């Protein structure tokens, strides 16, 4: 067993046993948050690592799923449509709406590469945020509160259940992303990342593959959005604003834009910093200055994030080298085609 796998296994075992090891606060607040933020960041890393697309729309789509769920399942006493559906159909339809929006976003951005793609997806995310802020019939500035959570995973039933459910879903998401990357679709996507022009000459439908990859990642982000809403019981436009968009990007970059595992590592670091930094006297409320500095240092020192640092630390192994050479050339997808 390689060192990577052993360390990964330790993390998984600790995560499963977390309710026995850590305090309720850690499990129900910090670790659960790290897991669903990790899911959203994983959707970003999937697009970046396998498709060469750094998308900032993930938080927008996550918010759309969350707001859709809020509108569908609340029943009076809050903003929004208060349709009062049961949770199961509510979740399905919320995911469907988010996936359709992701399809639309993907179809509009599929011919843009590199930083153009980054900018366009950022605009999508900010527009989604402004939409929910302005359209009072579905939310308005204050957002939707009192969103119900299914009984069998609610924290009132048992404090650890939401954590365990989130952990299970995060595990499934990880496996699904790994699996998709190895299917013919995923391999084609990686080919497109490396050389869209050649893939196009070989007869692959480049734009379609990129759109579908974006839609799939949108689905993953939407799953994260549902979990977020259940965890938080409310959602407001301010929680899916530019700040949140950048937070998820920061998580992905801290973890490492080129490896899926980095999503949860970055999320854990982010959540812990967020929680404990304010106890340090000279930081206090200035958490974002701290995270900005951490982000700046990571980008300047190790653009492949903590995962990249780890791989370099454990000796110059082929995988680390690959990530570095990919960077030196600029991941192929980052160049505009033509």
């Amino acid at each position, binding site marked *: 067993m390689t060192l990577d796998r052993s360390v990964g296994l330790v993390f998984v075992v600790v995560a499963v046993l977390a309710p026995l090891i850590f305090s309720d606060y850690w499990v129900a607040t910090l670790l659960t948050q790290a897991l669903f933020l990790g899911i959203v960041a994983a959707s970003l890393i999937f697009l970046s690592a396998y498709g060469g697309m*750094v998308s900032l729309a993930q938080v927008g789509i996550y918010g759309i799923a969350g707001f859709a769920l809020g509108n569908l399942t609340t029943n009076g006493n809050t903003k929004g449509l208060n349709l009062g559906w049961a949770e199961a159909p509510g979740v399905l339809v919320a995911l469907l709406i988010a996936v359709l929006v992701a399809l639309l976003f993907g179809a*509009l*951005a599929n*011919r*843009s590469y*590199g*930083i*153009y793609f*980054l*900018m*366009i997806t*950022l*605009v*999508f995310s*900010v*527009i989604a945020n*402004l*939409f929910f802020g*302005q*359209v*009072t*019939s579905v939310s308005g500035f204050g957002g939707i509160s009192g969103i119900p959570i299914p009984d069998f995973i609610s924290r009132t039933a048992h404090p650890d259940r939401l954590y365990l459910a989130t952990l299970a879903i995060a595990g499934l998401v990880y496996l699904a992303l790994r699996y998709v990357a190895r299917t013919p679709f995923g391999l084609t996507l990686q080919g497109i990342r490396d050389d869209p022009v050649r893939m196009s000459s070989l007869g692959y439908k480049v734009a379609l593959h990129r759109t579908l990859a974006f839609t799939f990642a949108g689905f993953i982000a939407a799953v994260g959005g549902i979990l977020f809403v259940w965890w938080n019981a409310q959602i407001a436009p301010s929680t899916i*604003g*530019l*700040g949140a968009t*950048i937070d998820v*990007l*920061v998580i992905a*970059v801290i973890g490492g834009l080129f490896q899926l595992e980095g999503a949860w590592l970055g999320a854990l670091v982010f959540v812990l910093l967020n929680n404990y930094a304010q106890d340090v006297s000279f930081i206090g*409320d*200035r*958490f*974002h*200055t701290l*995270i*900005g*500095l951490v*982000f*700046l240092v990571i*980008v*300047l020192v190790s*653009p492949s994030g903590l995962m990249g640092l780890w791989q370099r630390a454990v000796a110059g192994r082929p995988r680390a080298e690959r990530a570095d050479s990919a*960077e030196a050339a*600029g*991941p192929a997808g*980052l160049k*505009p*085609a*033509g």
Partner: protein
Amino acid sequence: MTELASSRTARRIGRGLLAIVVAFPVIWVLFIASGTSFGPAVSDPKDFLITLLNGITAAALYFVVASGFTLIFGLMRVVNMAHGAFFLLGGYIALDIQRNMVGGGGGLGLSSAQVGLSQWLLPLLAAAAIVGGVGLLMQQLFLRWNQGQDLRQALITIAVSIILADQMLAHYGGIAKDISWPRTFDKFVNLHVSGVQYTFTRLVILIIGIAIGAALWLWLKRTRTGMVIRAGVDDRDMVSAMGINIQLTFAIAFLVGSALAGMGGVIGGSFASLAPGVDANWLLNSLVVVIIGGMGSLGGAAIGALLLGLTTNFAAAYLPSDYTFYSIIFTFVLLAIVLAVRPLGIFGRPA
């Protein structure tokens, strides 16, 4: 042959659809506009004219800010994600300078009766210069040695914008503040068309926008630095190989581009207000303008700004009253139409 013909039909259908999408809002505003507070333009030319002017003057400010963004991108391929933060920083710096010059103004802010012309112009120029310096510093410290790695550079500017935004929140707080217009500007002018009385400050913004556009155009087309910049946009390596100091040109472009963001912030802070979140809105505006107009093109920034300004103002004014909230969707629709027809923007060229 048949494939060619079918793609031609598809293109024709596409163009037809586009024509409908563009024509319908025009017809709606001119002749129908039912359920709106104004009514159709043919029966209410006064409000139509005001909305049109609002759109154009908003576009002037969009242009000032976005032209800096597009100048930097065109030459260096740097997407300056800190542009919105620079905008807000410029506004806050001018606010401080103005309050120091005039004295007082603590809690309630200044009224324009207290402010002379120089007490607005000097803060404007000073803020532009300082923000230009901050931008230059960022470029020299972090971006210069990462040239060619555009994603990394974008991430660096994001990091800078996070730090700046948080520090501004710490120093200036969360409450909206505004810079005061000078008393000379604080009036209405009679346009002698349908009896429209129009705010003079908005016309000032328009004049500044046109002046900056003209100055940038002259600079880029008529001076040696401008010539080098235009050559650099087309082929940096070749310009460098000709023995021209391209690093100096980069520095100048970054200084000017950031200064334009700062200047925009002063105008924006006088016209509306300064608060956390304003930086995000102006980053969005700049991005939308240059994505529509085409990255790196000054003419594109002008067209993009005009389209965005008109779209937002007409959508807000001419949607039926119950649906006014949906005006944000029109920004998205505008962007979607342009991206569907021209993925690189109206004047965009492949890099």
